[in-house]
């Protein structure tokens, strides 16, 4: 009887499936972004910040995998300032089990983030990593791909459908020519695209439960990763102001104008 109880308390590694999701705190998608007066960066002081929408989709997918009984534990990882913990809390409220906050100030570029995630993956040994395809501030679309390369793992980016069966992932990707389906063995890196799912809202009871879930703090130094980048941002500018359009009286006038601007023969 005692050995049976022990087996219940320590499920074998074969049953354990750990997922890591990346979440990033960014300027809320609804905000009209402004550039700082000194053109060094986008203004973020006093501006509403939220979880990157593609990260929300990544979290939702991991939570659905857990609800299906495929994933047994989800860890949310975020690189950023102290307030990134709020973003991790939102992930916890959506159903993630625990969080890891990699504290860092200033702009951290994808390669440094990927190296930090590698350090976390080396320690936590997940079978699945799901990231958003890109963050809506940098629009880099690099971290997932870089992480897969650093780990030597297969990658499936722009995922619109994910199936995990018997240690294999089948992922449908949205590519320029349409849809592409890949099959790969775990562990894998997947990046989430818009149509993968529609993320749930965190409900109040779940937000309250999330306050009790654990967030471990660490930093680049502790992880043994150098965050300094070989790339410096020189200048950030708003796009040129759009010139006004022009109304003309009839179709002949349209054609004349198009010819005048050299747009038609």
């Amino acid at each position: 009887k005692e050995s049976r109880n022990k087996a219940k308390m320590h499920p074998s590694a074969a049953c354990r499936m750990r997922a890591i999701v990346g979440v990033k705190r960014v300027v809320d998608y609804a905000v009209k972004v402004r550039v700082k007066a000194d053109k060094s960066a986008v203004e973020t002081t006093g501006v509403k910040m939220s979880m990157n929408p593609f990260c929300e989709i990544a979290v939702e997918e991991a939570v659905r995998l857990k609800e299906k009984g495929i994933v047994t534990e989800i860890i949310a990882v975020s690189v950023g300032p102290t307030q990134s913990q709020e973003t991790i809390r939102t992930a916890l409220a959506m159903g993630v089990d625990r969080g890891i906050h990699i504290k860092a100030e200033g702009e951290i570029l994808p390669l440094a983030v990927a190296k930090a995630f590698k350090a976390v993956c080396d320690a936590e040994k997940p079978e699945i990593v799901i990231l958003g395809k890109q963050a809506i501030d940098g629009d880099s679309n690099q971290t997932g791909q870089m992480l897969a390369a650093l780990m030597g793992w297969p990658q499936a980016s722009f995922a619109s459908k994910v199936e995990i069966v018997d240690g294999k992932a089948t992922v449908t990707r949205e590519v320029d020519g349409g849809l592409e389906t890949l099959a790969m063995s775990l562990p894998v890196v997947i990046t989430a695209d818009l149509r993968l799912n529609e993320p749930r809202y965190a409900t109040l009871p779940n937000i309250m439960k999330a306050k009790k879930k654990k967030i471990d703090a660490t930093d680049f130094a502790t992880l043994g990763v150098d965050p300094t980048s070989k790339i410096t941002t020189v200048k950030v500018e708003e796009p040129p102001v759009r010139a006004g359009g022009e109304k003309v009286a009839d179709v002949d006038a349209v054609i004349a104008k198009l010819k005048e601007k050299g747009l038609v023969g």
Partner: protein
Amino acid sequence: TSLEGHLAALRGGIGMNMREMNQVLEVNSDDMDVRAQAGVTRKQLNSYIRDTGLMFTVDPGADASLGGMASTRASGTNTVKYGGMRDNVLGITAVLANGEVMHTGSRARKSSTGYDLKNLLIGAEGTLGIITELNIRLVGQPAAVSSAVCEFATLADAVNCTMAVIQTGIPVARVELMDALSCAAVNKYSKMELKELPTLFFEFHGSQASVEEQAQQTGEIAESFGASGFKWSSDAQQRGKLWEARHHAYWAAIALRGLPNLRGMPTDAAVPISRLADCVIESDADLQEVTQRTGLVGPLVGHVGDGNFHYCLAIDVTNPDEIHEAKAFSQRLAERAIRMGGTCSGEHGVGYGKLKYLEMEHGAAAVGVMRSIKAAMDPHNILNPGKMGSPIE
């Protein structure tokens, strides 16, 4: 922008567009309220607070501004559970005709001090002050949602079923009625295969167990009123399919006559629920007569839990006869609703289009007091003159 000429500058004047006064000022998760400027829209607000687990519930369909919704005392499809603006605005800051800034309401949930100026402004349609900020009540996002649909042999059965569901104490979140003609319109427009019968669409909010229980209990009640085809689901995608017809109803109604360039002219009567079936049956008979004579049709959609229903008349606005017929029908409907103890406008407000019914509905004494209040607050009648409360010319 409203539906009864609320913004029409009958004497010229300055129209104030509050759109750019659109900041969310303060979110108080613990108190479950939020302070926002008047130009914030409901979808903008709900997006802003989506990570708090809270939501602003009033949903009139359009992505309306908070100030506009307050000025028209807006409600929507889930008013039956959460109330309308009157129940969800805790405080209003307004600029008065003399330039003073007035604060009304309180962040405390109850106060027995002073006249209730906040509620005076709600529904005043801009005639007593210009709303600049609102304090809005929020509720928790439901943990689960389930939806149900079923058809009835008669409209009276559908209405009686709704009354029974409410009286049983089931906290239904939405209960919408589509009549047979509306179902036919949607079949034609969206190529669906609904039964052309009075149909009820339900939605329930709560915990997973609760929404399943509510749906099942409602199914049993519906069956006792002869309902057929009761289907329910708590899956998001299937719920969307169950409600699809209701979401297409308005556009299907406009398209029903098969003519281009028609404009929708919805009616808006509301009566005590116990009179709803009678009101609709009488109005239907009236409308049948109009249809036979003129070809005008009016598919019906109703917030049956509130006793409020809309005929979606689609008219050719270049045809003065059609306008005349539609207005005459609308007038008879308004008078019928008032006679039955109801109101000529459940949601769309008075503007100047329904000014003429105010005294019939409220009586001379009340209308006299409205005029006195307006005269006291806006002696020079600069705020939306010619509308509610203005002296008779």
